[in-house]
């Protein structure tokens, strides 16, 4: 494919897909190890009502109100989950299940009742994302990467997800030691003076921001695959957390790239006329990578599990 075709049509969706996948996979490593993977799912669902309410209040689809609305909804959900868990003294999974299904259902109802026909916000977009449409019309080829005017026309989603990814990297780099210690042994971490509750909340907030920023790229359902599949597959490749993170980043990037390419060209290669959903294909590829890691990964046996008699 030539640069004239690739740069405007495929470069930005591909980059956004990769950045979104990696930004979710990074906090996902800790969520999976803390057995809180479901929290990513919960977040991705609860942001929907926040985005719809933001649209209702402002009347436009614009990045910042939507981000703020989604973030507010995510925070409301986190507080509600914690409150139900503590007051009801029930397991976190049950508390999350109650909160995220209710909020998501509310979001779908709101969206259905709202006249969004003039703008690009509908249930389908919310579910599957909109990766293919995030193109860079100002670009004419590779040379546009050096053209200030063309660069100004980059989709805003690219800058947003790049900033989110940078934030996720900075968070994990800065808090690497306390994150690792408190994920392994929370009680001990607490006695070392680590604010384990605040750190756990910060991790969830980072995951929430990643989920919201990935909303445009992969939608609110498929983002959960990005939280779980690359880290889970990475866990089966190594027994060291540092290497697990590296593997998960690699798997996330491969899922996004391969998924995007297969969605765009796979059906053509098979003789079909239309492309399929890129987000769907990215999640499918990440699932296949997880299945392969589960079958062939060198560290797939739970070493700590008691031997089967």
């Amino acid at each position, binding site marked *: 494919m030539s640069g004239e075709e690739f740069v405007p049509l495929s470069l930005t969706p591909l980059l956004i897909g990769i950045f979104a996948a990696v930004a979710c996979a990074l906090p996902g490593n800790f969520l999976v*190890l803390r057995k809180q993977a479901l929290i990513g799912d919960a977040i991705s669902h609860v942001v929907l009502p926040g985005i719809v309410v933001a649209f209702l209040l402002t009347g436009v689809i614009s990045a910042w109100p939507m981000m703020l609305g989604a973030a507010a909804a995510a925070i409301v959900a986190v507080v509600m989950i914690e409150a139900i868990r503590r007051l009801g003294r029930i397991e976190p999974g049950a508390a999350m299940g109650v909160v995220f299904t209710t909020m998501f259902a509310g979001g779908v109802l709101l969206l259905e009742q709202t006249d969004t026909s003039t703008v690009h916000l509908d249930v389908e977009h919310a579910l599957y994302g909109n990766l293919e449409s995030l193109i860079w019309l100002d670009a004419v080829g590779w040379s546009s990467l050096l053209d200030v005017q063309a660069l100004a026309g980059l989709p805003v989603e690219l800058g947003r997800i790049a900033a989110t990814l940078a934030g996720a990297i900075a968070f994990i780099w800065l808090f690497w030691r306390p994150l690792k210690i408190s994920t392994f042994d929370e009680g001990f971490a607490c006695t*070392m003076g*680590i604010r384990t509750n605040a750190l756990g909340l910060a991790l969830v907030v980072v995951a929430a921001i990643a989920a919201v920023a990935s909303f445009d790229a992969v939608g609110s359902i498929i983002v959960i695959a990005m939280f779980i599949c690359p880290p889970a597959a990475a866990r089966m490749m190594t027994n060291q957390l540092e290497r697990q993170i590296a593997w998960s980043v690699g798997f996330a990037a491969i899922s996004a790239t391969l998924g995007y390419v297969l969605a765009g060209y796979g059906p053509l290669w098979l003789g079909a006329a239309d492309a399929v959903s890129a987000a769907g294909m990215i999640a499918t590829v990440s699932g296949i990578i997880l299945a392969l890691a589960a079958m062939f990964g060198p560290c797939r046996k739970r*070493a700590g599990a008691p031997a089967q008699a």
Partner: protein
Amino acid sequence: MMLELASNNGIANTNETLTESPLAIRGLTVSYGQKPAVFSVDMTVQAGAMTAIIGPNGAGKSTMLKAALGIVKPLSGQVTAFGKSLDDQRARIAYVPQRASVDWDFPTRVIDVVLMGLYRELGLLGRLRARHKAKAMDCLNRVGMRDFADRQIGQLSGGQQQRVFLARSLAQDADLYLLDEPFAGVDAATEKAIIAVLKSLKDAGKTVVVVHHDLATVTDYFDHVFLINTRKVAEGSVGEAFTAETLQAAYGGRLATAQIDQLSRVVG
């Protein structure tokens, strides 16, 4: 006048010894549900001693320790360490949780777990230097686990896991060591190794507190006991507080008469 002065001095002295205790707990109450797990407990840990916290299953032994350390939020109670607030003294306190409280499938190596004990020294971004690794190796050596440094922690036996936890606490260079059931489900060799390390800590002037379940070894291992069954039952030296009467009071009907008889022979 003289008398008043003397008694004032007396009070001042008592307060001083009380507050300078490595760990002083006052009126600690913890509840997980409707029923309190620990009710209005006072404990004054004797400096330089080896103290066993004993009581029947569900008596609140571990809960009391966790609440005293701020891992579990108590309903009420004050805790001081070395006469100051606990948060000021974290660097002087090493806590060894129950082995079963963590997931040993966590992707990390033995040496990395021991290095976690150096977190306060290293801070968020402090560089891990050769001397830190050497210290961690030395701690592993003290528990006989030097050869296992590069093993994935999931490959260890229960006794080896417990030794790694002990090595991590040694790396903290603390003055007060609090261990939650360190002898639960470990092999005899590990039990011997752990008690040897704890006795060496005591010889070095450190204070050791152990949540313990095996009544038969109390007199061999410890010089002080703290008996609890939701409320405090007894506290003091083994000779004073570890008697047939206090055990009966702590365990009630849960300890068979035959066991009491056997223990009273041990206790004397």
